[in-house]
């Protein structure tokens, strides 16, 4: 049989519950235990849904603080909980209480939660994508999250979430990144950003930059991070334009883009500035420092 989870569910659950225990009142813990008991065997879907929605009333919405911004649920699979409120964390944990053996039922119940979710529930559900069972089942739902018009929901899908980069096909992935630029998200927090960079996305982003320039608008410097590895004679003029910008952070972005390119003229362009070349080489100038300056 295909395995439902690609992480150790019991271990993940224990890690999450440790944090929940540290931040909860006795009263809240008692309520949670009662809900677990009432969930029953076989589970009552009504109880599962009711509890998912009711969680904030009994746990409160305080922001949790942890030693690390994420928990390691599998090798190379951090699950970010930084900035989580307690109710969101409990909701993610509660999702692990739904038995996953019956794939059809599991998917139906989770989809039902999505369909009726308010904004915070949606944010919790989308954030939990990497932990849900049957990972193949959530691809369309993920694209719906990207399509959302609600900032916190978009962020739950786009930022610090390893699910999209692992499961979306290239066009859907490109749409996620493009929409993140379009909605001014902190691009550097997209998991898998560099790994999933591709030629098609570079072309889409370059067209987008042209449109912004034609409208007299600024272009996000991190856009060039995704164009850098795909610099060719077709888009080199754009890199040169950014290189000659009056804005420091844009020049820095052009330098970093050139540094990530194997295109000869781009490398030659970077060599024109000994200062920038040295800063890139010594890692004093990185995409992270660029991101920090535009934040």
């Amino acid at each position, binding site marked *: 049989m295909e395995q439902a989870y690609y992480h150790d569910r019991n271990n993940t659950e224990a890690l999450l519950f440790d944090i929940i225990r540290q931040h909860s009142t006795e009263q809240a813990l008692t309520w949670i235990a009662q809900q677990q008991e009432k969930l029953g065997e076989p589970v009552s879907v009504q109880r599962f849904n009711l509890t998912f929605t009711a969680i904030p009333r009994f746990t409160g919405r305080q922001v949790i603080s942890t030693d690390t911004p994420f928990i390691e649920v599998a090798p190379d699979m951090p699950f970010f909980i930084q900035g989580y409120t307690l109710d969101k964390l409990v909701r993610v944990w509660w999702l692990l209480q739904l038995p996953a053996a019956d794939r059809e039922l599991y998917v139906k119940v989770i989809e039902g939660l999505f369909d009726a979710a308010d904004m915070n529930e949606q944010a919790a559900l989308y954030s939990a994508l990497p932990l849900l069972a049957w990972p193949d089942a959530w691809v369309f739902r993920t694209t719906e999250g990207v*399509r*959302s018009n609600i900032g916190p929901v978009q962020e739950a899908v786009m930022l610090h979430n390893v699910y999209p980069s692992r499961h979306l096909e290239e066009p859907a992935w490109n749409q996620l990144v493009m929409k993140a630029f379009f909605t001014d998200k902190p691009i550097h927090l997209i998991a898998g950003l560099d790994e999933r960079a591709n030629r098609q996305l570079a072309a889409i982003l370059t*067209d*987008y930059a042209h449109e912004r320039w034609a409208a007299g608008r600024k272009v996000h410097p991190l856009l060039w991070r995704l164009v850098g590895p795909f610099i060719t004679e077709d888009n080199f003029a754009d890199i040169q334009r950014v290189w000659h910008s009056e804005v420091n952070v844009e020049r820095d972005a052009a330098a970093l883009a050139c540094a990530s390119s194997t295109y000869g003229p781009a490398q030659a362009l970077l060599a024109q500035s000994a200062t920038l070349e040295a800063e890139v080489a010594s890692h004093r100038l990185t995409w992270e420092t660029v991101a920090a300056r535009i934040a």
Partner: protein
Amino acid sequence: MERIKGMRFFDPHIHMTSRTTDDYQALADAGVVAIIEPAFWLGQPRTGVDTFRDYFNSLIGWERFRSSQFGIKHYCTIGLNSKEANNERLAEAVMEILPSFLYKEGVVGVGEIGFDDQTPAEEKYYRAQLELAKEAGLPVQIHTPHRDKKKGTQRSMDIALEHGLDPRMIIVDHNNEETVKEVLDRGFWAAFTIYPFTKMGNERMVEIVKQYGSERIMVNSAADWGISDPLAVPKTAALMHESGIDLNDIHLVTFRNAIAAFAQSGQIDEADFDTVKDIDQSLKFNGSTVLRGGQQPRIDKQSNIIR
């Protein structure tokens, strides 16, 4: 706005369902005599076909009536929007009920349809709706994507031609400096949405009219649930006037061209723009009326410039 007093305007793209009665009053005061409300996305996905049916019904029912109470003639276009075309199970169900709405009175086109993410599902339902438009002899109002716009616009036009539609029956919406030339060169109507921050500003629009003239160009507000300006059309007319654009050109891009394009549906009679002005506040739609009496038009002293 003084400069354009007495001029009449037609906004061929505005989502009044998301707007208030204050907006209707302001539109009427600014000289907007008729509008088209395209069927679109309500800001979040619908989960069932019944909410689509109710929405389509409201466009030809309650919203049209609400508009008439402010002396504004309301038309609509009906379609399955590109975003929700991605939910294929639901999209299939919507396609079943869609055709009957296309033949309702005052439905002046199929719209707004086209591409959002440019997925295969979007293409499938775009094509299916082009066929419906062809059979019904209705103009098509094409929504072009915010992202990867240039390619999306080209692809929308290619596909429409592939289905044998006449470019004169197609209004390509949300153009910008990067798309306008090709749209006009290929014989389509080019609509421009004056919408703050994400689409066109009206200073840019003035430059476009200076460069491309007024043939087959129209402006709209696409005012909806986002930060938008229902007075975008009259404000743009005022700015054009201030910038020395000929009055006849202003008339074409803010009134006449849109009527010419959508009147190909056979559903626009300009005489109705006047008859709708005989506002009878005692009229009720299913027992409801919007006018409670004593409402004052909102006075908008803001700048005419929308960026």
